């Protein structure tokens, strides 16, 4: 049950984050570029993939398929986002966040949300997908053993 709760919360965050950005790659590239952290050649690839990764993670967590990988990516992206936002805040950059579509700006609240992705991702990594998941349905034995790892 606790796994299901964490999965649903994370799936909600990812799906909301993805929906405003999937078809706005140019806007996304501008947002990434505003952080002034990544080389220009990398920005288009990231701007095209990241919203779809958020969608894929949302679907994966919602259904409970490939949950371990999704938990790891959630925590990893949380670290990356928190690093980017923390560095923007430290440099005093007043820029659009690129987190949930248009409008939001880098903020301490956003930083806390990023860090909570890390925390929830780590919890899910530890707890496994739980019984109400595709993972458990496909390989019941494995989801039991996830707790013992």
């Amino acid at each position, binding site marked *: 049950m606790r796994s299901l709760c964490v999965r649903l919360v994370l799936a909600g965050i990812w799906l909301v984050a993805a929906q405003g950005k*999937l*078809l706005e*790659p*140019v806007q996304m*590239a*501008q947002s*990434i*570029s*505003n952080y002034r952290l990544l*080389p*220009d*050649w990398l*920005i*288009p*690839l990231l*701007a*095209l*993939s*990241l*919203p*779809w*990764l958020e*969608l*894929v*993670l949302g679907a*994966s967590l919602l259904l409970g398929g*490939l*949950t*371990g*990988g*999704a*938990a*790891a*990516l959630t925590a*990893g992206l949380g670290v990356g986002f928190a690093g980017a936002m923390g560095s923007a805040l430290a440099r*005093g*950059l*007043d*820029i*659009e966040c690129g987190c949930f579509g248009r409008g939001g*700006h880098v903020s301490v609240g956003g930083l806390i949300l990023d860090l909570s992705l890390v925390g929830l991702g780590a919890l899910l*990594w530890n707890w496994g997908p739980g019984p109400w998941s595709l993972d458990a349905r496909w390989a019941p034995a494995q989801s039991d053993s996830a707790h013992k*790892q």
Partner: protein
Amino acid sequence: MRERFWEALSLVTLAVLLGLGVNQWRGLPLSPVQPFVPRYSAPVLTLAQVREYWGKVPFLDAREHSEYSLGHIPGALCLPASRLHLPEQAWDAIDRNLTLVVYCDGPNCGASNLVASAAMTAGFKSVYLFPGGWPAWKAARLPVHVGPDPGKAEK
């Protein structure tokens, strides 16, 4: 552990394929292989943010003197993009630690881009663009000032 690595890699691969595939299908709104050229040379501010900065930091108006004289954001300095090459446009009059807000005649006016780039080259670390510019300011019925830049009145 190993299994989760492969799961994560599958998810990333799926996302990259979806992203590139949809982009291709939509007729390449963003080229995945060309380095990204930002539309704006500096981070952009909304009108609401600009109002927060107004009165606290220097504003630069990148339009020509003639347009500036007809109306500008009160307190803004006139620094036309066309005069950037002139030596008299030394930036030393402004403290380089201050944040700058640069605007011109709306989102498609390139002058503020040039001035913002020049400011960053000159050593200003915190430079913002206000793409809405003069039209957005005027449309919001905010205070305006008419007349030449006092510093360059005789020019």
